[in-house]
C-alpha cells in the first residue's frame, strides 16, 4: 500500500491522479450521500432511526439486493439490463410454494431456482450467442416465462403449505433476519466472483472491450450468457424467499423489481455501457435508494414526487458515467 503511494508521488501523472481523485470522489460521494440521508431522516422523522424501521428497510432491501448482485454482472458485461426479472422472481416464488405439497419445501425451492436459471440460460443464449439486443431478448423471454408460469398455476394465487419453511424464512439468526443473512452471503459470493475470479475478470474485460476480449481468447459469448444466468439464479432465489416470507405468490409478484435493481446498480456508479463496476458499489447504490425512499415515505412525500426524485437520480448517475467515460478516453 505504501509502495503504491510512493509510486504515485514519484510518478506524478495528471491523468492518473485525476482518475484516482474522481474514483475516490465517486466512492466517497455515495457514502456521504447515504450519511446525509440518514441524518436528514433522523431529523425529520422520529420513526426513522429506530431499530424496527431500519430492520424493515434492511429486510425489504435484501430481497431486491439479491437481484442487484446478479444485475451487476449484466451491466458490467455490457448486457444493458435484464428485463425478465419479474418472470424469474415469479417463477421462484410460485414454484417454491406450489411444489411444496408434492416434493417438500427444500427440493421445491431448489427446483424453482433451477427453472429460473433455465430462463436465464435462454436469455443468455439469445443475447450472447445469437446476438439479439438484451432489452428485446429479456423482454420477450420474460413475457413468455411469465405466461407459462401463469398458465401453470391457472392465473390464481398460490399459497404456502409448509409452516416450518415460512418460519425459517421469516426467522432470525443471532438477531438478524435470515433473509438479510442470505443476501449478505450472496453479495459476498458475487463480490468474490466479480473481483477475484477469472470469470469476473473475463466479465469486466468483455464489457470493457468485446473485440479485444474475444481476441484475447476470452470465451466472450459464454461470459455474456453467464451474466444472464447469474441474474436469473439470483432472481429465482429472491423470488423463492419472497414467496416463503409472504406465504403467497401471484404471477405479478415480481413486477417492478427489475427497475429497482437497475436503479440501484446505476446509482451505485456501475457503468451502463459495461466494463466497470463492482458488487459493493451496486449495494451502496441500493442502500442509498432504499433509505431515501424510506425517508420520503416517512416524511409524507407524495408518490409522484418520489418517482421524480428517483428518476433524477438515475439520469444523473448515467450522465455522470457518460461524462467520466469521455474524460477517461480523451
Amino acid at each position, binding site marked *: 500500500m505504501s509502495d503504491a503511494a510512493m*509510486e504515485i508521488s514519484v510518478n506524478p*501523472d495528471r491523468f492518473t491522479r485525476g482518475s484516482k481523485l474522481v474514483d475516490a470522489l465517486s466512492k466517497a460521494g455515495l457514502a456521504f450521500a447515504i450519511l446525509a440521508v440518514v441524518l436528514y431522516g433522523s431529523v425529520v422523522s422520529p420513526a426513522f432511526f429506530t431499530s424496527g424501521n431500519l430492520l424493515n428497510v434492511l429486510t425489504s432491501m435484501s430481497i431486491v439486493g439479491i437481484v442487484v448482485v446478479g444485475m451487476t454482472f449484466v451491466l458490467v458485461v455490457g448486457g444493458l439490463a435484464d428485463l425478465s426479472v419479474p418472470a424469474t422472481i415469479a417463477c421462484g416464488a410460485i414454484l417454491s410454494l406450489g411444489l411444496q405439497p408434492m416434493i417438500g419445501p427444500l427440493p421445491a425451492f431448489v427446483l424453482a431456482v433451477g427453472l429460473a436459471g433455465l430462463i436465464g440460460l435462454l436469455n443468455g443464449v439469445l443475447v450472447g450467442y445469437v446476438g439479439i439486443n438484451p432489452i428485446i431478448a429479456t423482454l420477450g423471454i420474460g413475457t413468455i416465462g411469465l405466461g407459462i408460469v401463469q398458465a401453470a398455476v391457472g392465473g390464481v394465487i398460490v399459497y404456502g403449505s409448509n409452516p416450518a419453511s415460512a418460519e425459517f424464512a421469516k426467522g432470525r439468526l443471532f438477531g438478524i433476519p435470515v433473509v438479510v443473512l442470505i443476501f449478505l452471503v450472496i453479495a459476498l459470493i458475487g463480490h468474490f466472483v466479480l473481483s477475484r475470479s*477469472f470469470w469476473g*475478470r473475463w466479465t469486466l*474485460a468483455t464489457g470493457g472491450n468485446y473485440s*479485444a476480449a474475444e481476441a*484475447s*481468447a476470452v470465451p466472450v459469448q459464454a461470459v455474456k450468457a453467464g451474466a444472464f444466468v447469474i441474474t436469473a439464479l439470483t432472481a429465482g432465489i429472491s423470488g423463492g424467499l419472497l414467496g416463503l416470507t409472504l406465504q403467497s405468490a401471484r404471477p405479478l409478484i415480481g413486477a417492478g423489481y427489475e427497475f429497482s435493481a437497475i436503479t440501484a446498480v446505476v446509482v451505485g456508479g456501475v457503468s451502463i455501457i459495461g466494463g466497470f463496476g463492482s458488487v459493493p458499489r451496486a449495494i451502496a447504490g441500493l442502500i442509498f435508494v432504499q433509505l431515501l425512499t424510506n425517508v420520503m415515505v416517512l416524511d409524507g412525500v407524495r408518490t409522484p414526487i418520489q418517482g421524480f426524485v428517483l428518476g433524477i437520480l438515475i439520469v444523473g448517475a448515467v450522465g455522470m458515467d457518460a461524462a467520466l467515460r469521455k474524460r477517461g478516453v480523451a
Partner: protein
Amino acid sequence: MTAVADCALDMRGISKIFPGVKALSNVNFAVKFGTVHAVVGENGAGKSTLMKVLNGSYAPTSGTIKVGGTDVRMRRPADAQALGIRMVHQEINLVPDLTVAENVYLGRMPGKWTFLRKGEMVRKAAAVLDELGAGINPRERLGNLSISQQQLVEIAKAYAAQPRIIVLDEPTSSLSEHETAALFRILRKMRDDGIAIIYISHRLKEVLEIADEVTVLRDGSMIETRPIEGITAAQMIRLMVGREVSNVFPKSPAEIGKSVLRVERISDGTRFHNVSFDVRAGEILGLTGLVGAGRTEVARAIFGLSRLVEGTVSVNGRQVSIKSPSEAVKAGIAYVPEDRKGDGIVPGMSIRENISLPILRRLSRFGRIRRGADRVLAADYVKQFSISPPDGERRISLLSGGNQQKAVIAKWLAARPSALILDEPTRGVDVGAKAEIHNIIGQLVAGGMAVVMISSELPEILGVCDRVVVMRDGRASEPLTRGELSEERIMALATGEEAA
C-alpha cells in the same frame, strides 16, 4: 480563360503533423480544371491525409490552399462542399433504405422536406443519372442495387452537386472491368464539362488509361508531378518506392528449424482464396500487399476470429481445427491484431489485467486468480520489454501507442505460443518504439518462435523478414526468399504490374 483560373486547386507547402508523426511534409499539389489528375503512392505515403486536408477534415499544420484561384481556409467538410469540392470514398456512404433519388439529394434538400416535391427530386435525379449514362432507376431502393451500382450512385450524388473538384478514392476497387470502362466514360464526360478530377488508385494500369497527369507521393512528401504521356508503370513504381533501403531493421540471426505453422489452400469464401504458406521455427515470414488485399482476413481466420470454408491449418505437423481464439491459443497460435485500440487492449483495465487476460485460467485455482500471480507476470514483462511507465497498475489507455503495443505483445508471449502472427505491429508508433518492437521480435525468433509479420511498410518487410508472401485481391504469391526481395518486385506483385 486565364492561366490562374485554369488552376482548380493549388495546395502549397502543406504539412500535417500529428503527435509524433509527420504525415505530410511541405507538399505542393496543383490540379487544373478539365483534367483527371491521378495520385499514387504506397500505403501510408500520405494520400489519404492530403485528401482529408483538401476536404476540410484535417486542418493543415502549415501551408496554403487556393481553390479556383482564391485563398481558402476550410475548417470542416461542409466548408469544402460549399467551395464545390466533393469526395467519393472507397466505402459506400449511402443510406440503403432510401431510394436512389433520395440518396442523391440527401443533405442538400432545397428548402424544407415537407414542401419538397418528390416528383421534382426524382426527375432531377433521373436527369443526372441519365447524363452519366448510369442506367439506374431513381425510384429504386438503394439497398437493392449491386455494389458497383451503388458506387455509381455515390458518383452521381457528387456530380449532382455541380462540383468544381471531385476526389475519387479507389473508385474501381469493387468494379468489374466492364463497369470500370463505364466509369471511365463518366469521368471523361465530367472532365469535358470542366470539372477537376482527382483520382486515387493503386491500379497503375487504370491510372495510365484515364489520367492526364500523375502525382507521386512517398513518405508524406510530393515526389513528382508529371504528364501521363511518357511515363510507364515501372517508372511510377520506382518513384513510389524509390528510397534507399537502409539497414535500420536488422534481423538478428536465428537458426531456422522445422515448419511450425503451415496453412494450405485456405479460403474464407469471399475475401481470400487458396492461400498457402508455412513458417518455420526461428523464421519471420512477411505477409504484405496493399490495404484490402486480404492479409488481415487471413490472420483473423487462422486465429479463429472468422471461419475458413476450405483448406487446412497445421501446427508442428499436426492438423488443427480452430473455431475460436481459445482453440488457437491451445494449438499454440497467438495473434496481435492490427487495430490496437479496437481489438488489442481493454482500455479501462491496467497493464497487469491486460497482460494476464489470455492465461487467467492458468493463473487461477478453484476459479480464483492466485494472489499476486498476475502481478508477478505483468512485472516480468514490464521489465523485460521496458514498458514505460514501469507500473503494472497503470491504466493501459494512458500509455503511448508503442508501449501499448509492447503490452499487447507481452500478453501473447505469456501464453507461450509456438507461432505468433503480428498484424502491423509498428503502425502508429514512433521510431524508438519501433526499433524496440523489432528487437523483441528478433529475440522471439532467436528463442525458436515462428513469426508471421503483416506489414504494409516495405522497408520494414525487407529489413526484418526471411521470406515474404505478397497478397493481391485475396490471393497469395509464392514466397520470395531474401535473395529475390526488392521493393520493386513486391510492388509489382502487389499491384499486378510487372516491373521492368
